């Protein structure tokens, strides 16, 4: 019996593990500003959000406020000659101003500077791309005839622009009660699926993309359309979105490699990017 117990103890010692705090050298822990703004000649407002990051290790602080938008930052946007202060909008919790106050023009470079009362600073710059992307093909096939459950097969082809390098966009299933609108206006339900053009597109004359989407409970809607949003974006916008679409939640999988989120914000995180936009709709009901 003693021998048996000895064997069992020794077997379990095989799976013995010890946990203790790791002793490896880490850089100084500091919180940084998280600044996000995407500007476009096709938008009517300039929106800037400012938050704090939280250092990962041994950070003693209050959790809530760091994840909320900062309200006391000073935000300036300039085009190199003209600079305006972007005011904080209490109702939306963002810094925003109309493009009437500060027009965004294709081909120009813009600068964003953010500072906070506690001395933190962050900045970024973006050059707004020229030209709008065009579709050369836009086919929507309704794959099944069940009125309550519609499957769409969408195929698009995007014409390359001579200066185009970075393309992002979205497929939107848009549905509404409104039967009169030629364009969707009173949205009941939309679903967006974002995409980034592969790098190979840079050397091809057109980019083909297909997407299968589904709409459940379709019987409720009188207006159903497939929308395609095309963004001709700058490099920063493209690289940031390529990583940010897969980053949230990726750390939960112990078998996956971490996603390095791109940033072009000096002194902080986030993105200051730009794009021109074109939107297409094809009504299927």
């Amino acid at each position, binding site marked *: 019996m003693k021998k048996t117990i000895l064997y069992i103890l*020794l077997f379990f010692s095989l799976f*013995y593990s*010890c946990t203790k705090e790791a002793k490896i050298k880490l850089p100084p822990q500091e919180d940084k500003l998280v600044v996000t703004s995407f500007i476009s000649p096709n938008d009517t407002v300039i929106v800037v959000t400012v938050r704090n990051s*939280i250092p990962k290790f041994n950070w003693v602080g209050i959790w809530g406020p760091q994840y909320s938008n900062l309200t006391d930052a000073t935000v300036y946007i300039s085009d190199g000659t003209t600079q305006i202060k972007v005011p904080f909008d209490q109702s939306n919790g963002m810094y925003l101003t109309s493009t009437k106050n500060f027009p965004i023009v294709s081909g120009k470079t813009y600068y964003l500077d953010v500072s906070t009362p506690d001395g933190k600073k962050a900045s970024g710059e973006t050059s707004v791309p020229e030209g709008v992307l065009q579709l050369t093909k836009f086919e929507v096939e309704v794959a099944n005839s069940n009125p309550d459950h519609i499957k769409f097969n969408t195929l698009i082809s995007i014409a390359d622009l001579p200066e185009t390098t970075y393309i992002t966009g979205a497929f939107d299933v848009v549905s509404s009660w409104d039967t009169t609108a030629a364009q969707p206006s009173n949205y009941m339900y939309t679903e967006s699926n974002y995409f980034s053009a592969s790098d190979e597109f840079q050397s091809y004359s057109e980019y083909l993309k297909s997407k299968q989407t589904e709409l459940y409970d379709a019987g409720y809607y009188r207006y159903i359309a497939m929308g395609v949003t095309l963004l001709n974006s700058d490099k920063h916008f493209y690289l940031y979105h390529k990583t940010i679409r897969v980053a949230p939640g990726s*750390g939960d999988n112990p078998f996956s490699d971490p996603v*390095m989120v791109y940033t072009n914000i000096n002194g902080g995180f986030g993105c200051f990017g730009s794009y021109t936009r074109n939107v297409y709709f094809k009504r299927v009901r």
Partner: protein
Amino acid sequence: MNKPVKLLLFCVLFTKLLSAQSKYTISGYVNEKGSLENLPGVTIYQPNTRNATTSNIYGFYSITLPAADSVTLSFAFIGFATQNHVFKLDKNQSFNVQLKAQSELQEVEVVAKKNEPVSEDVQMSKIDISIEKVKDIPALLGEKDVMKVIQLMPGVQKGSEGSSGFYVRGGGPDQNLIILDEATVYNAFHLFGFFSLFNGDALKSVELTKGGFPARYGGRLSSVLDMQMKDGNKEKISGEAGIGLISSRLTLEGPLIKNKCSFLVSGRRTYADALIYPFLPSDSKGGYYFYDLNAKVNYVLNDKDRIYLSGYFGKDKFYLNNKNNGSEDKVGLKWGNATATARWNHLFTNKLFCNTSLIFTDYKLVISADEKYQNGESFSLRYTSGIRDYSLKTGFDYIPNPNHYIKFGLQGIYHQFRPGALVVKGNSFNENINNTKLIEAFENSVFVEDDWKITSRWRLNAGIRVSNYIVRKENYINPEPRASLRFKLKEDLSLKASYAMMNQYMHLLSNTGIGLPTDLWVPATKNAPFMRSQQVALGIAKDFLKKGYDISLEGYYKKMDRVLGYREGASFLTVLNGEGNEVSWEDNVTSGQGWSYGGEVLIRKNEGKFTGWIGYTLSWTQLQFNELNFGKKFYARYDRRHDISVVGVYHVNKRITLSFTWVYGTGNAITLPLNTYNAYAYTSPYSGYNQGAFNQMDVGTVQDFGQQRNAFRMSAYHRLDFGIQWHKKFKHVERVFEIGIYNVYSRQNPYFYYIETQQDGTQKLMQVSLFPIIPSFTWSWKF
């Protein structure tokens, strides 16, 4: 044809004729006395000349010398007494030799010379592992493991604590070609990587090549681990048996027809599951076990023909069965390898040896889950993946004279890849089958190499391998030049250089790198292209023959192209991409390039009461992928700046052997988050969330890793193991009792790190360690 040309041709032919008439060949097989086991790598040389050759892996040798009344040939091999034989060389002769093992001569001191001094060998970056040495070196839980001994060599690094996986000169574990009796072994691990498949009792020889690959090897970028099973004792029944803490083993070998036909059967099984079974509750049973079975039969048909049939079969199984109030669930995970090799040796002439092999290898993983509920409904899931090869290989050894040893041959492999098939069944829904299609591929090659002793100082092994790969109607043909050069500065001091290009037509998808059975072999395709490496190495080798030790220094630079990595955020569990589309394994991977360079020192003492070695490696390994780390270079996870191994075996007297190993390695490179924040991303103006107001929305919490992958290091790894063996000889049996201590000073080496949230909301980086000090006891018998 004009007159001078005719005259020249006549002279050349006449000279050839004369020289052919005046030379004769001595050829035959070298065997171990007592068992008639073939001995590969035996040096056969004419003393005081540079006429020498070595026996091939089947023990065959051939040496052609000028006619003489008296020619002495010496037969020397590590662990065996050297024999000298005198021949009257006036005709071609067949001569078989039986060498006596040193254990029969002297019981304590290791006295035999190495088969070939390191300064003599043209091949660099090659390590022969003695099976006897493997049995002397202390091991985790007393389980002697060839692959753990390989990890103690310079240029070879282990992956993580206890793992049998190894990394050679910056290459991943998938870049090692592991072959057992010519059959590729795809998953060489038991117990989630802690033990290797290879039972030392069944092995005859183990050879690891890290660079300067001869043309006969191909198919992997970084190393070739070539293992041969014993043939089986042709004279008498003998065997070995052992009882350890977690497994027992038994090997039996003997003649089926004396001196003509022999067999070997070797088995090993763990029994932890059987030990804990009685203590588990009756409604919840589970366990884990693995077993191995090696078998071999060989038959000497006549002087010119021999046949070998060998096979390996092994399986790991983890299972858990629960019963509760009429419901029942069963979970299982099993994986296993099977290999079979049929070989035919044929002597066309006494200078031309041929081996033809028919090879089969199979690896399969099955994950299963079955549930039965009280209401009669059921659910079952089966996930299977694997790879199967059928291969035909013919190789020739042509030894025209002592200055040339020419090898040439061809091989064809038919691969069947099954990257993963999932079948889900249940009462409440229709059968759902996600079958990844079987992918077929053909890998063919032809090679020729010549080991050429140019002068007494210069020796060259030059060759070329042409590999061909066909998959999905894509056809690739790649020449792979190889060369190794040796220049002797002194009798026992030489400079060496080598160059090798290697192509690899398959990839291993693995996020962990520790040899989990879920690692998936996939073929190179257009989207996951084949890999290529080019390696140059320079070295210096010095023998101290009188003192019985040797020193080798080597520097290497290796460039790897199209190495495969997972896209950020993807894993073998990933089934949807960031756009919500289903993805296949080809969508999860991206290819890049790698660089590895460094220096290695190996000091070995091969003779005397005290034997062992010191190995040191200084190396750098970097990778670069356009899709990873923003396109910047980063250190590989297994980049290890310093790696040290010290191994000692001391034969105190004929009854007691002491041994120790000490290892040190720089910690693995890891990526750690430094900041966390809630991020915004662009949103479509027609998004339901946005309703067209703003162009950004909160997408959740993300982490910042300092904008650099693998920028941090785990704590350094170091460990001391100790073993003591008591040998006792009875009339027919020799018994060895061993006490081993793994991790003598109980160093808490890092296995992995994770982040733990404390009660006050702060987060701490925690280190998990396996295996503190672990004693073990093993009994073994040889009869």
